[in-house]
């Protein structure tokens, strides 16, 4: 199929999600493997861009401290190459919850500061529950990214430390959230007032932490 797509002139995205805590081992070893497989995507499979997604073996999420660190270190190590790098989003909490929005924002901040060029998401509730994904999660992903652009990395790391610490103890009891049908008007495709209030609350928390988010 790849041969056909290349001949057709399509944009080729190669996706690979290294598992933290799997065969590779710890954060450093997983990052080394992540860089190797990212380079393989361009060398062997003629990728035009690479979609990463370091995932935590215990929680099945990309928003954990360790997986953020792996993705950020891999992107920063490859920054000088001008390769186009993307990352994808799998928070543990479901839509219409503050935790889901804060997890998504944390990854957007980390991906943006480490130089990634495209953010793809978000598959809330680990991307495994039917209809538990909505546009509001993409809104926080984009707005957090826009607010991070150009910030000093030391300031970004300070925000991330506080932000990740605020949710990482709650993975086991993460809120399941609501289905799209319960947090949007399905006919008009407008988010409910409840979800807008949850969103405003998450934005206020991010501002308190020092992120100048709209």
């Amino acid at each position: 199929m790849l041969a056909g797509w290349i001949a057709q002139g399509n944009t080729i995205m190669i996706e690979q999600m290294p598992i933290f805590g799997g065969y590779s081992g710890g954060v450093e070893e997983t990052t080394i493997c992540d860089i190797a497989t990212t380079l393989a995507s361009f060398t062997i499979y003629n990728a035009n861009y690479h979609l990463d997604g370091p995932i935590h073996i215990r929680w099945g999420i990309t928003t954990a401290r360790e997986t953020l660190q792996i993705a950020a270190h891999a992107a920063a190590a490859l920054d000088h190459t001008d390769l186009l790098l993307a990352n994808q989003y799998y928070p543990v909490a479901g839509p219409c919850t503050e935790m889901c929005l804060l997890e998504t924002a944390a990854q957007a901040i980390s991906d943006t500061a480490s130089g990634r060029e495209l953010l793809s998401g978000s598959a809330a509730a680990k991307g495994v529950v039917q209809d538990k994904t909505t546009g509001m999660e993409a809104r926080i992903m984009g707005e957090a990214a826009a607010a991070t652009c150009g910030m000093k990395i030391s300031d970004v790391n300070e925000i991330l430390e506080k932000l990740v610490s605020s949710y990482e103890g709650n993975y086991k009891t993460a809120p399941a959230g609501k289905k799209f049908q319960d947090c949007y008007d399905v006919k008009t495709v407008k988010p409910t007032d409840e979800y807008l209030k949850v969103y405003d609350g998450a934005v206020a928390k991010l501002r308190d932490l020092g992120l100048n988010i709209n």
Partner: protein
Amino acid sequence: MAAVRPLNVFDAYDRNLKGKKVAEADWDYKIIPGNATALKEKYNIKFGKEIVPEDKDLKERLFQAGLEMLVTTGIYNADLGRVLTVSEEEVMEGIKKTPKWLVLGENRDAVRFEPRRGNAAKKPVIQGGPTGAPVSEEVFVQIMQSYAQEAIVDTLVNGVMATIEGHGASTNTPWEIRAMMAELRAVREAKIRAGRPYMAI
């Protein structure tokens, strides 16, 4: 030695067929962890508390370790049970041949996808969507519209239609193809409803 040329997928396929035979368990349990640990030690790679690294030297050592991991270990083809290997020169030619920027989408909905270099002032491309999460057939258009209508979103990524005309979209059945075609129509409808018909999918 200089690379003959950047590899293409045909070269890679042929090289896969001639690769060294390795048992999958050896690859998973010995070769990958053993080589990754050895390179971590060789390049003295140790992360601190920072999530985003600032140490330029660490970033350079990490790149060298990743490059050496690919060149010395290769890539495993699980179907064939063989290892494809590439040279450092071929990796560098691959990087050189990769487009430096892309345009995603068309006309007024097009977005330029280009290197940012560190935490640049330029915003990353925002690709909104369920990223492969399951989505009901009945609300597929509406869920995709909820992303397409967001001002900050530049391009779309699909969810997976859970059923098609009530049938499961199982792999290797005709329903899989029917579901895929329905997904494409639904995403196009969502873009049109959001007033962004040329947005990239």
